[in-house]
Structure formats: structure tokens, C-alpha cells
């Protein structure tokens, strides 16, 4: 083997990957620019937006209900013995409520939604692309970005906070059920203790970041689906990369949001 040839091959590969990376960054910015333009266009697709809100919000409720309840239940069962060692079992409802509302509820709900909604959007749009449905839509004088992409991104942005609130509420309910496995606490007492430790400073930043999580899920799913390659393999690839990249971005956005919140508390 000629070492010079190896070196050239490596350099060419690095050059090609660097070029592809910057090309994708440029594509993402162009896509964002078009989405912003189409979001504020006069012919907003309200009917499709409400349909997507129903699909994304209402149809995800059962999954979020199960996840939220189990999250609260497990958190209570795991935390109770530790708190009991310190004689602080009375702090359990407050601790669960704060951790659910500030962090666990938004992040776990967003990750679940990245799996269900993000992959769904990625797979749906990529299969529409592969089967030329997006081209057909464009030829029917319908802007596919406005009809398919903007409506889905806005639907995830506005539905995720609702799903997180629902998960938080059921998480606290699950926690109450968990607390009653080894104890006896009334529903009203548990709830009043839980919410006595929660202030607006816990609720507002968490609520704001759920909009960002929703936008991330919608955007990544739409971008991956809309830019899928040809062939059926690209449908699976779009669904898979939508979940992976949305999940990663959710964690990164969460880290940044926590840092920003910390500056004000």
C-alpha cells in the first residue's frame, strides 16, 4: 500500500464529509427561513393545523397517561425509603411535584413524543416524498411546506405543553397511589402538600421550555422527512434519524434552559 494514496484518500474523505456537513447546515437554515416565511403567509392552513393538533395531541394522550402515571409511581416508590431514613417522608409530595414539574415531566414527555410523534412525522413525510405525493401537492397549487411542514411544527409546538401538563398531573396522581402502597394519605392532603412546594418560578421556565421541545420534535421530523432520499430505505432512515436527533436536541435544549433558568433564580 502506498502511504501517499492512503493519505489522499483520508483527506478526500475528510473534505467530502466537511463539505456535506456545511451543506446540511446551509440546508437547515434555508429550511428554517422558508418555514418562518410560510408561517406568516396569508393562506395559513388552519384546517390542517387543527387536524394535526388532534393527531399529535389527542392521539398521544393514552401513551402520556401511562408514562406519566408510572413515572410518578416509580419515583415515589424509589424515593420513599431514602426520605424515610432522614425522617423526611412528609417532604415526599413536594419533592415529587417539584421534580416532575421542573424536569422529569417535560423531558420524559418530550423524549416519548420524539419517539412517537417525531418518527411519525419523519416516516409520513419521507414516504410522501418517495411516492411523489409531495410533488403532486406542489402541482396542485398547494405549497407543501405550508401545508405539511408548518402545520406539523406548530401543532407539536402547541400540543407538547398540553401533553406535559397532563403528564405532570397524572404523575402526581401516580405518586399519590405510590405513597398509599406503604402509607395512608388522603388525596386532598397529598395534593395540597405537593403544590405548597411549587411556585411560579418552578412552573414558568419548565412550561416555556416545553414549547421549545415541541418545536424541536416537529422541526427535526419535518426536516428529515422532507429531505429524505429516494427509495423505501430512506423512509426508515428518516424515522430513525428523526428520533435520535430530536432526542439529542431535547437534552441539549434542556441543558441550556436549565443554565438560563439558574441565572434568574
Amino acid at each position: 500500500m502506498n502511504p501517499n494514496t492512503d493519505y489522499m484518500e483520508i483527506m478526500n474523505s475528510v473534505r467530502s464529509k466537511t463539505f456535506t456537513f456545511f451543506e446540511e447546515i446551509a440546508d437547515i437554515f434555508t429550511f428554517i427561513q422558508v418555514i418562518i416565511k410560510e408561517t406568516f403567509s396569508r393562506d395559513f392552513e388552519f384546517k390542517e393545523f387543527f387536524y394535526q393538533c388532534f393527531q399529535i395531541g389527542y392521539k398521544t394522550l393514552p401513551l402520556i397517561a401511562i408514562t406519566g402515571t408510572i413515572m410518578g409511581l416509580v419515583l415515589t416508590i424509589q424515593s420513599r425509603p431514602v426520605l424515610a431514613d432522614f425522617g423526611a417522608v412528609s417532604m415526599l409530595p413536594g419533592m415529587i411535584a417539584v421534580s416532575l414539574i421542573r424536569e422529569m415531566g417535560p423531558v420524559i414527555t418530550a423524549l416519548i413524543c420524539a419517539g412517537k410523534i417525531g418518527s411519525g412525522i419523519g416516516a409520513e413525510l419521507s414516504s410522501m416524498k418517495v411516492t411523489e405525493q409531495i410533488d403532486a401537492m406542489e402541482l396542485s397549487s398547494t405549497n407543501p411546506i405550508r401545508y405539511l411542514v408548518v402545520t406539523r411544527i406548530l401543532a407539536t409546538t402547541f400540543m407538547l405543553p398540553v401533553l406535559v401538563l397532563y403528564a405532570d398531573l397524572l404523575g402526581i396522581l401516580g405518586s399519590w397511589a405510590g405513597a398509599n402502597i406503604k402509607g395512608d394519605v388522603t388525596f386532598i392532603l397529598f395534593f395540597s402538600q405537593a403544590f405548597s412546594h411549587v411556585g411560579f418560578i418552578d412552573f414558568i421556565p419548565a412550561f416555556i421550555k416545553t414549547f421549545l421541545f415541541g418545536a424541536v420534535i416537529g422541526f427535526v421530523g419535518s426536516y428529515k422527512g422532507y429531505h429524505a432520499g429516494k427509495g423505501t430505505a430512506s423512509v426508515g432512515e428518516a424515522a430513525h434519524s428523526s428520533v435520535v436527533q430530536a432526542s439529542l436536541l431535547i437534552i441539549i435544549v434542556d441543558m441550556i434552559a436549565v443554565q438560563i433558568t439558574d441565572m434568574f433564580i
Partner: protein
Amino acid sequence: MEEVPINHMKTKPHNRKVVIEIKLLKKSFGDQEVLKEISLDLYDGENLVILGKSGSGKSVLIKCIVGLLNADSGIIRILGHNIPDLQSKELSMIREKIGFLFQSGALYDSMTVRENLEFPLRKKKDIFTKEQVDKKVLEALNHVGLTDELDKMPAQLSGGMRKRVSLARTIVTNPLIMLYDEPTTGLDPVTSEEISMLINDVQKKYKTSSIIITHDIKCALLTADRIIMLKDGEIYKEGVPENFENSSDAYAKSFFK
């Protein structure tokens, strides 16, 4: 955008108006040159078949015509308007006059047959009442013989039925020009013949001018007024179907044997 009426458009020596005029069209993907200075005309009321092997640039050509792909250079004039020069709004207006039958049918999976047919008319709510839209949808479905399938989902239809519904969706807007991308691909010979006959029916009933992209010789012979054969992105041979059937050229014969 001011429309150029067909009777004011460029006329060819044999007194037929040119509906689509393509001059020196070039299109490459990376280093691969797919269309090499293609020039052709489609005349009013004509069925023009573009024949060629897979990879000869047929589908790229038809997608450049409607602006789904941007040509590298050349002129694509439809009803007197140069497509590469048009803004998106003007392009939309031209596209309203064109029906495009996709190779895969491209029916919207999440919509019923009725919703698929209503979709191209949704932007014309100020022109058509709900009753008029229903009438147009039924009329188009009746034309392809599928009025009973109105509330079915595309997944419940056979390949031939999907193609026919797709054809109904393109004619529901009464287009002046029809573009067919491999209309008989993946269909059995009987259904292929039915689709070919439907293409002729559409031309007669709606007075359309059509470009039919195909490598199916039976479909080409059934539908063509004129045939253009593409080879490696260039026009190889042009003429009426009889010229091709009786041709001594080895490449042309390989299609018609």
C-alpha cells in the same frame, strides 16, 4: 399574469399551434449529463409519446417541463410562458392548466378517493360551490369508471384502480395539457390497454395536448400521434408511429420487435 391564448401562440408550418416549446434544454446531476440540448414542440391537441430506455432522461425531461426540477439551461415555454423565468405565483397559475399523472399514481394515502379528487379544487372555493365540486368529482370518477370507490382509501384499491383515480384527479381541473409519466408501468397487459384507451378518451373529451413518457410499446402505439425516441439524453429519432414500426434502424427496431 397575462395569459397567451392558444390561438395567439406560435404556429408551425402545418398550421398547428405550439403548446409546449422546448429549446436546447440541458440538465445534469453532478457530472452526469442527463439531458443534452433537447429541443421539441408539442402541438395543440396532439399526443406526443417520448420513448426511451430507463435512464434515458424521460422522467427528468417531464419534471423540468412542470418546474419540479430546474433545468441548467434552455427554454421551456408553456402556453407562451417561459417556465424558468416565472415566479412561484405565476408558475402555480400555469400548473393549474397542466395535469400530471405520476408513475406511482401519487394518491394521498391519508385521504379517501373523494378527498384526493377534491384536493386540487380546494384553492378554488371562491369559484366553485360545494355542489359544483361534488359534481366535478363524480364526473371525473365516472369518466374513469370508478364512481363506486368514492369513499375508499387508496390502500383499498388495486394498482390499475389507483392509476385511474390518479387520472381522475388530474382531469378534475379540466387541464389544457396532460403529462403522463410511465402511465402503464407495473400494470398487467389488460389494465395497461385500458389506461392507454383512457388516455385517448381524455384527449378527445377534454381536448388536451399530451406528452406521454413510456417504454411500453403497446401504450406508445395505442396513444401516439407522434413519437420522439430518446437515447442517452438526446433525441435519437422522431416521427409518426409507422416510421418506427417500419424502421430499419437497429436501436428503434429493438423496441418494436
